[in-house]
């Protein structure tokens, strides 16, 4: 019976806090895991009863997210960020070092249940990697020394709160500031400016500004806001997409860390324009460390009447913001998957149409905007659309923040007016030996040296902000292989081409890496990629093979030097496969072996 009361004692407050609402399931699971360390099947059965939903439903949500655990992962759960930029900074040696220190294999939990060490997708610290997460708290700039220090702290079971503060320092690294990063923010200024313009006036300025979304797709923000405003619905919602999971990008992290006023005021302005009463910030789990300060910021805004009732004295303008935490799923950056996640479910992209602007969160009209887009709305509120429209290029107005990482002297954030050439960014960040740049992350485009004259703009090279530089010493095959594994891990599994295609692509890349690839595998890579691109349900599957296709085309020698000079080789070693048979029969003579040369 003591076990029952223990469960009630720990879990009841969580359920109460979330009002037993099944649509808060993901947040409930997160909070329950915080008190129980992991979510056993028994816990799920209990939670399903409490929430009056099916056990399978609870299980579906738990099993979808990388940071929700069905079994004990240890009291200290260490995850090494394994983006290609972390690898270039030497994360693999540090990972091995920590595993050796603990005497563990990757993913294994120590016998005393103390610790596990594993890899995770990009944690958004590419400018200050190699990075790790310990119980979802970010630690940057790992060194062999720091690995040893952390091992001692873990072995002595020192609470994370007592670890050296410098471990958890996350730098902004702003290298080039323009209108967004370089302008001081006066709290409430943008909200008051929007209210002065009125709802129609604000929308008109947005239209003139021709602001396009900064999350990658580049949809015109004014059209989105207008569609949401006009859609029939009982409630409207503003969702800030802070699920910055694209490998190599970290601009939203800096905006949330040091420019939160603009992000939240952008949400308030969007709410004012479309008539929403609730806003939701969907924060990726990797940025969980930001949550306390963001909550404090929201409290401050409430105190200043910039959130809550009759905002900034405007009668009847009521709006507030809640923070929802993700749980490790790249796909939740896709807006309809993000909405599913907000509703407590597995983050799988919905069938569109209907689009979120007419049928989003709770099937109500919903605006989903990127963190940076919302910041831009505050500039338009203050300065007007015409002023804004004059900056950048015709189809890409305003400035864009680029997250620069990889082989350069000064990684960090660079803000430019749209239209900046790749070569300019390379020069500014001190990348004199660049051979290739991966723009817009693993799903983006790989540019070779002869394309460095191209421009960052929707007209030429669109980007969500990631900018990873590879110098002449790097191996573009390994870059593409890292991305292929990333997508295999992050595919949601909903549709056939993506679920299976990402697995096939990463297997083919591994086969080539093992020296067992031939021209046959090269053809297969492109064949699979073409099917994924043409028939996948959402952008993840459609773009998951881009890096492979780009590097096959532009850096073919990186592949060819690995290929075996034969028509075909099986993926496995035929002779080694017979070892078990030899052991069983007790034979090891020459005739029991295949001639590998034949």
């Amino acid at each position, binding site marked *: 019976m003591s076990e029952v009361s223990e469960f009630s004692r720990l879990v009841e407050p969580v359920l109460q806090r979330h009002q037993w609402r099944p649509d808060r399931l993901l947040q409930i699971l997160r909070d329950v895991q915080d008190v129980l360390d992991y979510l056993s099947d028994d816990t799920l059965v209990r939670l399903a009863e409490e929430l009056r939903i099916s056990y399978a439903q609870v299980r579906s949500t738990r099993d979808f997210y990388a940071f929700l655990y069905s079994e004990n992962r240890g009291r200290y759960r260490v995850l090494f960020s394994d983006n290609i930029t972390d690898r270039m900074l030497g994360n693999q040696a540090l990972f091995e070092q920590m595993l050796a220190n603990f005497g563990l294999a990757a993913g294994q939990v120590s016998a005393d249940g103390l610790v596990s060490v594993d890899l995770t997708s990009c944690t958004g610290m590419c400018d200050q990697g190699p990075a790790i997460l310990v119980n979802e708290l970010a630690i940057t700039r790992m060194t062999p020394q720091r690995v040893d220090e952390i091992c001692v702290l873990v072995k002595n079971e020192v609470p994370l709160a007592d670890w050296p503060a410098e471990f958890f320092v996350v730098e902004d690294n702003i290298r080039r500031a323009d209108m967004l990063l370089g302008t001081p923010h006066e709290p409430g200024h943008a909200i008051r400016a929007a209210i002065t313009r009125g709802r129609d006036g604000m929308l008109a300025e947005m239209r003139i500004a021709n602001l396009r979304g900064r999350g990658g797709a580049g949809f015109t923000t004014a059209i989105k806001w207008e569609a949401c405003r006009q859609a029939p619905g009982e409630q409207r919602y503003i969702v800030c997409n802070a699920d910055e999971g694209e490998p190599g990008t970290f601009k939203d992290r800096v905006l949330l860390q040091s420019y939160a006023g603009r992000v939240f005021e952008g949400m308030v302005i969007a709410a004012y324009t479309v008539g929403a009463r609730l806003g939701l910030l969907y924060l990726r789990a990797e940025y969980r460390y930001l949550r306390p300060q963001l909550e404090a910021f929201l409290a401050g805004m409430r105190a200043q009447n910039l959130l809550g009732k009759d905002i900034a004295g405007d009668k009847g303008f009521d709006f507030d913001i809640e923070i929802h935490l993700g749980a490790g799923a790249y796909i939740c950056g896709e807006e309809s998957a993000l909405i599913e996640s907000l509703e407590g479910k597995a983050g799988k992209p919905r069938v569109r149409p209907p689009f979120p602007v007419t049928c989003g969160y709770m099937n109500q009209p919903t605006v989903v905007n990127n963190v940076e887009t919302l910041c831009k709305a505050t500039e338009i509120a203050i300065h007007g659309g015409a002023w804004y429209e004059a900056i950048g290029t015709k189809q890409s107005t305003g400035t864009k923040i680029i997250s620069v990482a990889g082989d350069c002297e000064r990684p960090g954030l660079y803000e430019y007016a749209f239209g900046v050439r790749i070569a300019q960014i390379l020069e500014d960040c001190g990348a004199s030996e660049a051979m290739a740049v991966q723009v817009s992350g693993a799903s983006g485009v790989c540019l070779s040296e002869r394309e460095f004259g191209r421009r960052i703009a929707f007209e030429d090279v669109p980007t969500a902000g990631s900018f990873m530089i590879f110098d002449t010493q790097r191996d573009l095959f390994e870059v593409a292989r890292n991305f292929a594994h990333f997508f295999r891990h992050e*595919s*949601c599994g909903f549709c*056939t081409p993506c679920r299976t295609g990402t*697995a096939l692509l990463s297997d083919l890349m591994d086969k080539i890496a093992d020296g067992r690839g031939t021209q046959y595998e090269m053809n297969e890579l492109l064949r699979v990629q073409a099917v994924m691109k043409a028939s996948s349900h959402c952008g993840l599957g459609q773009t998951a093979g881009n890096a492979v296709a780009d590097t096959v085309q532009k850096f073919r020698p990186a592949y060819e030097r690995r290929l075996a000079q034969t028509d075909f080789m099986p993926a496995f070693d035929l002779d080694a496969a017979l070892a078990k048979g030899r052991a069983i029969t007790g034979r090891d003579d020459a005739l029991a072996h295949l001639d590998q040369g034949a």
Partner: protein
Amino acid sequence: MSDYNTSGFDSANMFSIDGRRIPFKPGQTILQAALEAGVYIPHLCHHPDLKPHGSCKLCTVTVNGRNGSACTARALPGLEVENDTPALNDRRRVLLQMLFVEGDHFCPGCEKSGNCQLQALAYDLEMVAPHFRHFFPKRTVDASHPDIWLDLNRCIMCELCVRASRDIDGKNVFMLAGRGANSQVVVNSPTGLLKDSALTADDAAAQICPVGAILHKRVGYSVPIGQRQFDDATIGHQVEYLARRHIPIKPVAVDAPKMPEKEGV
């Protein structure tokens, strides 16, 4: 007016598939209208009694030059749809091969043989080999239920059982859990076993599996091989059957656990 001229439809509710004129009722999807008009578009996760899903992607067609799932795309006046083209069928063959290698589909040993839509489609699209390396997944067989057995090795993640149990039976017996290639159907019961779930043999969810993942016990060979649904004519020539294969629906158990109505915030 030529049959191939799609720009001059005299009726508003017409579109074209491979140049052939197809009438539709407003609100129908391309796939629904096609099946009703006797035009076959390959599909696995679609069923006439259930809401469109769009996960198997076999029904991917080209609509006015862009790729889309025929099962979720609405029929609209004047659309020009390409369906039965070598390029699209090539792609479908690859998708079938993907489904075959990610599971364990050993047709000769499966009692669904001849009634299996995956197998029938593979014949129809002339898939002669799985082509890719098999994944050899380790999945479970649940034989605990007195009337039904569940072999996840043959599951193609179409979620027809999930949807039928939720939307027709009102029981939520099945759910897809996990992510990516680790996705799998899970059973809603405290033990995770079918015997402890609310599933009964007459549930829609027990009838709807297009492959051999959910099978009834003790009826495996009551219809001999050679006389089964797809033995005589290929699935592509059984459009009428595909359009009208409704599941016998029994009264819904209203007290079964269901997702409560969500409240607004």
